[in-house]
């Protein structure tokens, strides 16, 4: 039997406990800043988890994944701007528009491979970025403030920072569980097989394109949810959230944490955003330090932090 008490499992369990305790720490110290930071981390971990589904398990290097964060955010922001605050309308719309966009982007980009796929997903995301920039009614490139958070009357009050944090955390855990179910199902086997050897998949009788398209849509839809959360967290939405460097950040989280592992993206999101937070306090030029650190991980720890821990567990 596999050992449960490996270095990796202990680390992941520790990380999750830490994330559960963040609000407590905020209450005890009467300092809400960590809560704000960790809410952001959890939301981006959710986005990275959705990217991991296609990047880590499906081998699709989408360089435009942040587009769905923008779509989810704008769905919330635009409806709020027009006086519709109900989350029961905002969020389903966020998911629906994300899914439809992913269907459109995927149906074209998945006909290509490798660098072409990366470039096409990037091009689509940039196109959506400029669409957002051109939305004069909704703040154009300055973005717009969302004066009221999504309303879920009688269920949850998103303005309560602690409830909101636990909602985000719960959704993250649910998504990780969903991802884990998906990747081990028949559908997931097709996705993983297609990453490993798409030619062979077709030779044994799989029309792989349609499966890849569906998983691309699932990932986009989940990422749209993280966009709706992020807009609520910041009370603000602007085109900046869907700029291509944001898509790059998501890729870095997945690669840094460990591609194709359930908790890798969470580890990556926590590591990247905490490093960013810490280094930007040390120096203005923090990216000079962060860059080489990422290079080292990519060069010497192919499986990311998760891979290092798993290696330590075996050794």
């Amino acid at each position, binding site marked *: 039997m596999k050992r449960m008490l490996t270095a990796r499992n202990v680390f992941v369990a520790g990380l999750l406990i830490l994330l559960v305790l963040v609000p407590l720490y905020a209450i005890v110290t009467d300092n809400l800043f960590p809560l704000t930071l960790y809410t952001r981390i959890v939301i981006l971990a959710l986005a990275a988890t959705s990217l991991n589904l296609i990047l880590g398990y499906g081998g699709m290097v989408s360089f435009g994944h942040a587009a769905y964060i923008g779509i989810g955010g704008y769905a919330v922001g635009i409806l709020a701007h027009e006086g519709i605050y109900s989350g029961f309308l905002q969020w389903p719309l966020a998911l629906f528009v994300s899914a439809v966009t992913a269907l459109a982007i995927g149906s074209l980009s998945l006909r290509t491979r490798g660098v072409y796929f990366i470039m096409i997903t990037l091009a689509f995301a940039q196109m959506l970025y400029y669409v957002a920039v051109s939305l004069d009614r909704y703040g154009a490139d300055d973005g717009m403030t969302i004066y009221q958070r999504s309303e879920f009357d009688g269920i949850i009050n998103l303005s309560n920072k602690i409830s909101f944090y636990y909602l985000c955390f719960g959704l993250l855990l649910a998504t990780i569980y969903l991802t884990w179910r998906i990747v*081990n199902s*028949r559908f997931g*086997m097709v996705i993983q097989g297609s990453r490993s050897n798409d*030619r062979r998949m*077709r*030779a*044994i*009788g799989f*029309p792989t394109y349609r499966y890849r398209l569906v998983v691309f849509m699932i990932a986009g839809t989940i990422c749209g949810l993280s966009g709706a959360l992020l807009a609520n967290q910041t009370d603000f939405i602007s085109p900046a959230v869907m700029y291509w460097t944001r898509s790059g950040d998501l890729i870095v989280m997945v690669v840094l944490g460990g591609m194709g592992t359930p908790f890798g993206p969470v580890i990556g999101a926590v590591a990247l955003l905490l490093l960013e937070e810490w280094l930007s306090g040390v120096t203005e030029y923090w990216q000079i330090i962060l860059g080489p650190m990422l290079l080292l991980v990519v060069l010497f720890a192919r499986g990311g932090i998760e891979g290092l821990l798993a290696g330590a567990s075996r050794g």
Partner: protein
Amino acid sequence: MADALLEIEGLSKRFGGIVGSDAISLAVPRGELHAIIGPNGAGKTTLIGQLAGEMSPDAGNIRFDGRDITALPVYRRSQLGLARSFQISSLFLNFTALDNVALAVQAHAGHSFYFWRNARCEADLRGPAGLALARVGLTDRGDVLVSKLSHGEHRQLEIAMALATTPRMLLLDEPMAGMGPEESARMVELLRKLKGELTILLIEHDMEAVFALADRITVLVYGRIIASGSPEAIRANAEVRQAYLGEQETANG
């Protein structure tokens, strides 16, 4: 031919100035083991590529079980029962041997839009996959990662994956490539067992194996069929001896 399972008519394929297939016409009756031989560059792999659907011919057509499959994509041909193995093992290296074969079973067990149940626990997939592994003699290697298997085992697994798709016909592209004499002998035994049940198109360099197994042999040179007939007839054919066998005999002798 009325009971031909695979019929090829006037199949032609050019790559710029190079002729890959030159008006190839061939019929493989049900139950036959038909071997295709020819020197390097004779267009054997080009032919398999067109039969499997990875390349589309410039002219001619391919009929499988009476149905024109010339324009069908690769996966549709597999679903009709035309299975292939690859000359260079083409497997899922990060999966176990059993996972590999189970995936081939899954491809022919209806659609795969099931998102919840663990596929590795489904008896419907693991059972038949285990049987396919047993047929090629890999039963006790099922749980080993494919990247850890030997070359010979990869070749066996190639066959197991083709078998797991419950095919009516096998396209085998040099199943003995890179095998030692002992492994080759085992592969010949395996193919002999399969011979009665399935129609097989075998491309192979190992002449000993070809003459031991084939019901009929077709000789390809520069993309063109120069002879087709029983092993005895091919052995006696002067043109073949000169173009192919003779060359090897001189080389060997």
